[in-house]
């Protein structure tokens, strides 16, 4: 529906203004005498959703208009799209199993300023990592230091881009996604700044770029306030360039309520390579929605390793668009619920060119009776994607009664000379493996713990950096230990 709206800007819209002062919405509105009541009361039609409108308004109010033409353009486009987008309901296929009422019923407050006194507890980090901090969606200047990066590489805010050349490249590609949803547009409208990672042609960046996202503002558990942050990053890797990106969404100590709605756009030029690691460990009261949109030119490689364990509602949308042949795409994800959580992965890989190779492994553990994991993995092998080699495997471990997992692996294959496979397994632990432990003197309880941990370890081991692996393993062990010790 959003796509429809953006191609028909003259769609009849009458929007009752709530803040009369500013002229913010698209001037191409046609005011008519068409009754207000009929429209505003029916969210099922393609007319504006009141709630969404209010949200859009508050987002626009929260930010000053940007000095950057690019950012303003993004905001304008997003605003236009938002106006005809509904808040997702359970009737929408892509949100059939995901209940977003947790966000909708809260009092959403877009954060308009970076925190006054940023308090990030762990500055000490492996010096191999080049770290950048986002607090409440705002990129912190204090961590800028592009001195150790190879020539021509830029990592920083859009506003501080040294050359216009890069700016031009970015502007041609920013925000261009026909498959976006409401949350994509919300970020487009509400992102205070854009971080750009630019890798010039043929440049291989040895040190991974470490992006750490911290939430400072949070609503107390009692109140329904939900501060909203919209960090946005754009990565452009030119032909033959290579870079590793690590994104870590850290949790707060006290489980306050907040919503992180982030977007990462990646454009990989021919022969380029991006290794993307994504670790999400937000507090159990937080909402986390993330978009990762990737465009791959021919012979490029995109590898994603994700470990998501936090958040009351966490949804990751991945869209990989193949723009040339012989690409390699590997998505490896691990989701875990140890409490009343929903972990959702909706991924889509669109292949339109021959000889693409794509493998997807999704593993999840649900260790709580109200926990839920949702997986919708879509791979479109279109007509010209001949000799594609695509595989998809999802394995789930349900450890508690009433734990739920909804998996929908799907490959839509139109080409006729392809090798595609997919598999799904939902189970408890394997008896033969448990017996092997017992036959060596290890009791059942310890064996279960070891096997559950090792189930996730298969994905964690694929994280490209040992430091990160250790950190994530310890975190997962801790989370599992606390749930399994509750078992009798």
């Amino acid at each position: 529906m959003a796509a429809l709206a953006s191609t028909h800007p003259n769609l009849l819209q009458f929007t009752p203004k709530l803040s009369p002062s500013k002229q913010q919405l698209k001037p191409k509105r046609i005011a008519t005498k068409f009754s207000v009541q009929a429209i505003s009361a029916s969210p099922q039609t393609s007319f504006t959703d009141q709630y969404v409108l209010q949200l859009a308004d508050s987002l626009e109010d929260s930010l000053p208009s940007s000095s950057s033409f690019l950012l303003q353009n993004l905001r304008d486009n997003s605003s236009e799209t938002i106006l005809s987008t509904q808040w997702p309901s359970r009737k929408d296929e892509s949100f059939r199993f995901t209940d977003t009422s947790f966000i909708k019923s809260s009092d959403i407050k877009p954060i308009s300023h970076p925190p006054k006194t940023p308090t990030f507890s762990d500055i000490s980090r492996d010096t191999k990592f080049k770290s950048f901090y986002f607090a409440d969606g705002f990129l912190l200047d204090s961590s800028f230091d592009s001195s150790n990066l190879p020539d021509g590489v830029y990592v920083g805010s859009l506003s501080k881009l040294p050359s216009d050349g890069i700016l031009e490249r970015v502007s041609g590609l920013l925000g261009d996604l026909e498959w976006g949803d409401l949350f994509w547009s919300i970020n487009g409208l509400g992102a205070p700044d854009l971080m750009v990672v630019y890798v010039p042609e043929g440049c291989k960046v040895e040190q991974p770029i470490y992006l750490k996202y911290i939430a400072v503002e949070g609503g107390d558990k009692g109140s329904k306030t939900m501060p909203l942050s919209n960090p946005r990053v754009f990565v452009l890797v030119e032909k033959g360039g290579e870079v590793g990106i690590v994104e870590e969404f850290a949790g707060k100590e006290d489980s306050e309520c907040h919503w992180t709605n982030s977007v990462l756009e990646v454009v990989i030029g021919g022969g380029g390579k991006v290794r993307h690691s994504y670790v999400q460990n937000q507090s159990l009261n937080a909402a986390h929605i993330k978009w990762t949109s990737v465009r791959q030119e021919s012979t490029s490689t995109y590898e994603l390793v994700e470990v998501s364990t936090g958040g009351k509602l966490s949804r990751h949308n991945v869209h990989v668009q193949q723009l040339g042949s012989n690409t390699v795409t590997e998505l490896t994800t691990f989701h875990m619920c140890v409490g009343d959580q929903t972990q959702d992965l909706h991924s889509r890989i669109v292949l339109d060119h021959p000889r693409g190779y794509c493998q997807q492994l999704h593993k999840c553990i649900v260790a709580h009776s109200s926990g839920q994991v949702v997986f919708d993995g879509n791979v479109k092998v279109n007509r010209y994607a001949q000799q594609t080699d695509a595989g998809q495997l999802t394995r789930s471990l349900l450890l508690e009664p009433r734990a739920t997992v909804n998996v929908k692996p799907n490959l839509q294959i139109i080409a006729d000379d392809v090798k595609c496979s997919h598999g799904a397994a939902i189970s408890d632990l394997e008896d033969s493996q448990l017996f092997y432990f017992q036959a060596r003197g290890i009791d059942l309880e310890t064996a279960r713990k070891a096997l559950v941990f090792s189930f996730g370890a298969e994905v964690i081991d694929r994280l490209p950096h040992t430091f990160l692996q250790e950190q994530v393993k310890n975190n997962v062990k801790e989370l599992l230990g606390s749930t399994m010790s509750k078992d009798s």
Partner: protein
Amino acid sequence: MALVWQIQCTASPPLPSLPFFKRKSSSSPSLPLPLTRSFRLRFTHVPSPRPVAASISSVESPTSVDGLGNNKTPLLEVKGLTAVIAETKQEILKGVDLVVNHGEIHAIMGKNGSGKSTFSKVLVGHPDYEVTGGSVVFKGENLLDMEPEERSLAGLFMSFQSPVEIPGVNNIDFLHMAYNARRKKLGQPELGPLEFYAYIYPKLDLVNMKTDFLNRNVNEGFSGGERKRNEILQLAVLGADFAILDEIDSGLDVDALRDVAKAVNGLLTLKNSVLMITHYRRLLEFIKPTFIHIMEDGRIIKTGDSSLAQILEEKGYNAIPSA
């Protein structure tokens, strides 16, 4: 050395065990029954009327008396063990009797499907099988009452015929867990990772494996030979009073077999025993058995010494009942 000849025939179906064999599992070390351990008769319980195969064996009893002249109890005593597959209730073991003493090496051979692997799995406590009768006494305790991990901690080790893969758990962690479980049982303090590594490092030479092998996941991507050597490494690390080696030679090349045999021989002492299940004489040339048993149709039908293997090799299994 006492030489005992026992000739028993049963002419009619279901005879209860003769009073000779009816004795309680003896846990007291001083038994006034010097003849106990010299019984090697395979006495078959026949559930349905059919001609009973009379098993006659002439047995030379081993030096079953230790230097001080005390008689030790058998390490393992199996009497009339019957077992079925838990799911289908199909009977596999139809009355197995076996006695293994300390310091002995036994081998079981037999046709495919005779129940050799089942026997070893039942001893270890595999959930696929259900014991329907008989008794097993291991070191004076009733083995069938114990959980698999308790049996392992009591000193029973089985090397699997096809060890299962455990992706995600690496070898050193697995061995560490198992070793610490043992230490805990013995009331000894558990070893930390570094100390454990120091303990395990020399054992790798025993099975001729490199150290990087410890970081690999248990049996993941291992070739057949590597899996078998991994089993022997576990035996070397954990130690056992009674080791059951289920077809340890299958899938091994000549050199690997020699390594494995050398490792097993190196682990043998006067106190522990080994039960090998194999098809081929080759392994028995490296690890010389004290006794060879032939198993058929869920029972042990013949027991002999190493010369039995020669007969099998030359004439096949059909030659056995008539021998």
